[in-house]
């Protein structure tokens, strides 16, 4: 346990303070934007420092306001959460940079940047907290910020999407709260490390499984799992592309993160039911997501459905609960955050050239005069399918290998089939946006499009943002080795939470290895 724990606290309070400052500066858009970008940069710096600390010295924990665990709230960073906050902060930085060219004065003065920063603070809090009730609180902070971002601007489609997003997400948070309440009633603790110990002592495992399934349901709504993802394709395509990018990258991943945390640390008592259900949900989510994407003929909505199918892939490793599977899951999750930002932001530039129209019939012809855009779009698109040499390949390789090692034939087969359909979806998308000739335009339409295309000033923000993401995705693919080594350690820490528990409760608290009922370990 580090002495005062500032490395764990700073990634959360930096964006929070920057949000307040950005709100105070809302009348000066340029200053506000700078605060937002600088805040994100500082957050990225702190998270990288935290990652270094965790990589060198193992999981870190701090008892906030010196109320010792398991009674007070702890912040914990193991490698998994440290890696995630780094990627989240990078995403925030890219989005803050790009936002200056996209969201417009109106939205910026109505609090776009404060919401963005609060969302990042909520994400960091959710990744770093070691207290399950505190996790709920961070979820709510996050949810408030997303409500704001989603309906900011108040277009009809946004309100419509916002209604569905609000209703289903509120059901999810209430379910989560119920599950937390019942779990507290059974175990008498909220500290996740302590829960790991107390859950083994519970004498009513059937009731525990019921609670586990309630957690599963709540996080399944948050993560957009089949059949609970209806809110996602109903709302993600309605706000400006940069907001969609942020949501697609981070929100569902926080649901997946919580699922992984809870089902590796707390509920491992009856894996035949819980992890078996996760496997079935993974299969159905992959299938439903790619078929939805294949059926759509609007770029925004196609991209939205790919968010759903990718969640299915991430769950494979968790369902298997093997080291190789979890390596695949963690790596896939990390790179998918980047892939989603890259795809949505590059797509955002593409629709700007089409006066923000995203129906397939209205797009085309960008290959000839916007070759660089085709490249920065193609790199995340390839990662989405899982083609070498970009990052998605390694994630999928580890997942499929993990599934084969565990002899999970259905999971393997569906993952590969879903990847093929993804290839079709991405191929069609790429052909439509870039290779197909541009649609015939009337004089007025052509003028509107010219007026709408990104200006030189917009480009100065958009190009670095999108290029940075593409470069990182490519870099992760080519120089995957060191990252995979870290991810392997992270997977080990997930499978054997001894280090996590020692960091939180001290070395005396670690229980003997639990006996697993029906596990696939």
């Amino acid at each position, binding site marked *: 346990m580090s002495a005062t724990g500032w490395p764990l606290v700073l990634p959360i309070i930096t964006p929070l303070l920057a949000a307040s400052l950005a709100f105070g500066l809302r009348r000066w858009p340029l200053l506000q934007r700078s605060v937002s970008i600088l805040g994100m940069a500082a957050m990225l710096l702190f998270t990288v420092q935290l990652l270094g600390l965790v990589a060198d010295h193992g999981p870190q924990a701090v008892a906030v306001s010196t109320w010792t665990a398991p009674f007070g709230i702890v912040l914990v960073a193991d490698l998994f959460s440290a890696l995630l906050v780094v990627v989240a902060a990078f995403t925030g930085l890219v989005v803050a940079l790009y936002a200056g060219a996209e969201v417009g004065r109106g939205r910026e003065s109505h609090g776009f940047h404060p919401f963005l920063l609060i969302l990042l603070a909520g994400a960091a809090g959710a990744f770093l907290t070691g207290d399950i009730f505190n996790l709920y609180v961070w979820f709510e902070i996050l949810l408030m910020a997303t409500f704001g971002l989603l309906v900011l601007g108040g277009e009809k489609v946004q309100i419509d999407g916002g209604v569905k997003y609000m209703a289903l997400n*509120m059901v999810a948070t209430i379910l989560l709260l119920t599950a937390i309440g019942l779990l507290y009633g059974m175990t008498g603790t909220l500290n996740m490390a302590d829960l790991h110990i107390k859950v083994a002592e519970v004498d009513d495992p059937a009731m525990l499984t019921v609670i586990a399934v309630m957690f599963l349901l709540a996080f399944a709504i948050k993560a957009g799992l089949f059949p609970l993802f209806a809110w996602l394709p109903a709302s993600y395509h309605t706000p400006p592309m940069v907001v969609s990018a942020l949501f697609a990258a981070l929100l569902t991943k926080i649901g997946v993160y919580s699922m992984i945390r809870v089902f590796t640390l707390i509920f491992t008592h009856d894996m035949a039911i819980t992890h078996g259900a996760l496997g079935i949900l993974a299969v159905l989510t992959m299938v439903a997501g790619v078929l939805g994407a294949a059926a759509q003929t609007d770029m925004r909505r196609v991209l939205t459905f790919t968010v759903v199918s990718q969640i299915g892939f991430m769950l494979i490793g968790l369902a298997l609960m093997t080291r190789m599977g979890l390596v695949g899951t963690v790596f896939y999750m990390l790179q998918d955050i980047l892939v989603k930002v890259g795809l949505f932001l590059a797509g955002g530039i593409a629709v700007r050239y089409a006066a923000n129209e995203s129906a397939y019939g209205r797009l085309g012809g960008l290959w000839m005069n916007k070759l660089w855009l085709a490249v920065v779009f193609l790199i995340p698109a390839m990662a989405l399918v899982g083609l070498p040499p970009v990052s998605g390949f390694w994630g999928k390789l580890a997942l499929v290998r993990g599934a084969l090692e565990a002899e999970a034939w259905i999971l393997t087969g569906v993952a590969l089939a879903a990847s093929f359909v993804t290839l079709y979806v991405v191929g069609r998308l790429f052909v439509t946006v870039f290779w197909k000739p541009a649609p015939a335009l009337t004089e007025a339409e052509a003028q509107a499009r010219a007026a709408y295309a990104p200006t030189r000033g917009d480009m100065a923000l958009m190009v670095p943002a999108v290029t940075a993401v593409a470069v990182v995705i490519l870099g992760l693919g080519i120089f995957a080795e060191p990252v995979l080594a870290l991810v392997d350690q992270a997977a080990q820490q997930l499978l054997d939470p001894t280090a996590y528990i020692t960091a939180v409760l001290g070395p005396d608290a670690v229980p003997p290895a639990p006996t697993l009922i029906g596990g696939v370990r």
Partner: protein
Amino acid sequence: MDFVLPVLIGVLVACSIYLMLSRNLVRVVLGLSLLSNAVNLIIFTSGRLTRAIPPLVAEGGTLPPEGYANPLPQALVLTAIVIGFGLLAFALVLTYRAYQELGTVDTTAMRHAEPQFDEPYDDLSEARAMRHAAERGNV
């Protein structure tokens, strides 16, 4: 009380689910608020229903006296009420805005974000383009 509270929770949950199954958005929001109250009661009962003394430390002491009530569930319920209050306020404002903008509170009639296939499809993009162009002063 051991009998009354669970029954009350059951009734609240049943009512809220009945309300949420409605197509009327106002009823859905009311159902959500009812459900969050039911959950608060669940947390309250998870701290055990006992007749106990307040968990206050006497002057000069370091521990509260024996047989004190568990204060944690009440802190949790308070937090949950606060958060639920904030969410409910947002939900009500959003419902009101939806009624103003979309002219209906019937959720099946809200098809702006997901138009049916026989409706003109680029409706979404066009409205957005107009709006954005107006914002940038190009119209």
